[in-house]
């Protein structure tokens, strides 16, 4: 019997990606295109949506070609329903609805966060880890129980990636390939540790106080030449990652779990992975981390949970194939796990 194939479209933020995944978890193609803004500037919804519209069709063609499959081999289309930015989400959803009607196949709406988690699980083979989901818009500590990915801890204000992006703008770092990547590189040259506000409440974290503090402090220390931009990046990473590792460990102690999976764009930061590795080792567990191909938003991470739902007979009626900017991880009923 031939295996089912799912084509997934992701476009919730500044990347548009198309992935084709087979029933056994094999990723046949996963091209993407990133909308990169000039230094000091974030991406705006309208321009980003236009970028996605311009690239989505050629990415679909490229994916089919790389996967060496024809449209008639595709069993279903998955797309990101949310959370994310309205305009960019809609651009992806319209492309998905068009393909589903053109190819006469079912469509499946996927939660972006669940996409990250399921992608991480299939790529690493992690079975039932505590998940740290860290990206531009999300910071959550998640564990699975009774058909849902439950949020044990999260940020009570800014997301960690957002905090990094905003700080990169203070230093006027490049957005290519991403602000976080450039902070990570610069931090390697830092040596002086500047103490910053460290705010952990139970399993929750807060970054907004830290951000305003470091914005002021950086101006002051750079002007007086008592610290370098590298020192500031180093201190910022050491502080916020320590907070993330601490809340992850607290969730592990609470859930009695030994393994950790890191997903989301900030998850490819090697310093974060290294710190998490040290913590997990001390607890006799295993760290599962993935590289930028799968950590950063991509189409396969949407195609795979789409396929899992498809196999359970779950589709989204075409008229309900809409988008929502706010869509919580624990809103999704996970039918494919026990």
């Amino acid at each position, binding site marked *: 019997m031939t295996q089912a194939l799912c084509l997934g479209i992701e476009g*919730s*933020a500044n990347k548009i990606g198309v992935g084709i995944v087979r029933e056994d978890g094999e990723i046949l193609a996963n091209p993407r295109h990133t909308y990169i803004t000039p230094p000091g500037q974030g991406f705006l919804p309208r321009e980003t949506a236009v970028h996605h519209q311009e690239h989505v069709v050629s990415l679909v063609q490229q994916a089919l070609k790389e996967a060496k499959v024809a449209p008639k081999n595709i069993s279903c289309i998955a797309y990101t329903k*949310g*959370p*994310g*930015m309205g305009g960019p989400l809609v651009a992806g959803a319209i492309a998905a609805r068009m393909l589903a009607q053109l190819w006469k196949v079912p469509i499946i709406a996927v939660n*972006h*966060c669940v996409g990250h988690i399921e992608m991480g699980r299939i790529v690493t083979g992690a079975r039932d880890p505590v998940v740290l989901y860290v*990206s*531009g*818009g*999300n910071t959550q500590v998640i*564990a699975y*129980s*009774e058909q*849902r990915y*439950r*949020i*044990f*801890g*999260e940020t*009570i*204000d800014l*997301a960690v*990636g957002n905090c990094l992006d905003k700080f990169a703008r203070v230093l006027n770092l490049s957005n290519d390939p991403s602000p976080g990547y450039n902070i990570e590189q610069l931090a390697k040259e830092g040596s002086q*540790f500047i*103490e910053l506000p*460290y705010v*952990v*409440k*139970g*399993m*929750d974290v807060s970054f907004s106080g830290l951000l305003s503090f470091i914005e002021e402090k950086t101006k002051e220390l750079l002007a007086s030449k008592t610290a370098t931009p590298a020192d500031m990046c180093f201190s910022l990473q*050491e*502080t916020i990652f*320590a907070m993330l*590792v*601490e*809340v992850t*460990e*607290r969730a*592990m*102690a*609470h*859930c009695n779990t030994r393994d950790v999976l890191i997903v*989301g*764009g900030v998850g490819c930061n090697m310093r974060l992975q*290294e*710190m*998490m590795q*040290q*913590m997990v080792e*001390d*607890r006799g567990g295993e760290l599962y981390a993935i590289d930028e191909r799968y950590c950063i*938003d991509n189409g396969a991470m949407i195609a795979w949970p789409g396929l899992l739902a498809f196999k359970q007979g779950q589709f989204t009626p075409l008229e309900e194939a809409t988008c929502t*900017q*706010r*869509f*919580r991880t*624990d809103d999704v009923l996970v039918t494919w796990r026990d």
Partner: protein
Amino acid sequence: MSKDDLAKEGFLDPIISTASCQLLSQGAEARVWSGEFLGRPVILKQRFKKKYRHPVLDKHLNHSRLKQEVRSLLKARKLGIPTPVLYDVELEASTIYMERIAGCSVKELLKKGMSPADRHSLGRKIGQLLATMHDGSLVHGDLTTSNMLVRSDSQDLVMIDFGLSSISGLAEDKAVDLYVLERAFNSAHATSVDMYDAVLEAYKQHSRQWCPTLNKLADVRMRGRKRVMVG
């Protein structure tokens, strides 16, 4: 754990060697041991070095949390909140000695199964206690069901684990404290959220400042829902 291992982690062994104790739990920042001291059952809580943390940050956090835990244990008693009796503190070994409570955590009780009526009355007890604590400007910082113990003899509720606590009269801080507990119920005890309703109900009856705090709680919740989640 051997003396050598402890030394490697930069610790002195506490006066009661942990070798003669039983490890109860390894949390995010401390190891908790159960032992005997002068014939009494004691708990040793030792904060250990975290290798993943920058040494300056690590030292600062361990030290300030140990001090905060001791201060708040005492402050809570003054407010009439049951907490374990503090026996001793050894700064050099980052260890606190305290009374061992004979009983179960609320988390364990829930796991064993409780009747709706029992859940309701225990929830009310928790709410009343939190109201007293907050009215006394003590914010716990890590309100979860594992940090509340119930004595097996008297059924008294005992609060523990004050390492993340702070002194604050701000409605915002108290609201975040409740929000942390709310989320603990939603995630770990999804089938017992009725107990959290009883917590809030009793909190409202007993806290003099329930109005600003619960209004703020609604704000904090909304912040979570309204946050844009891109990426």
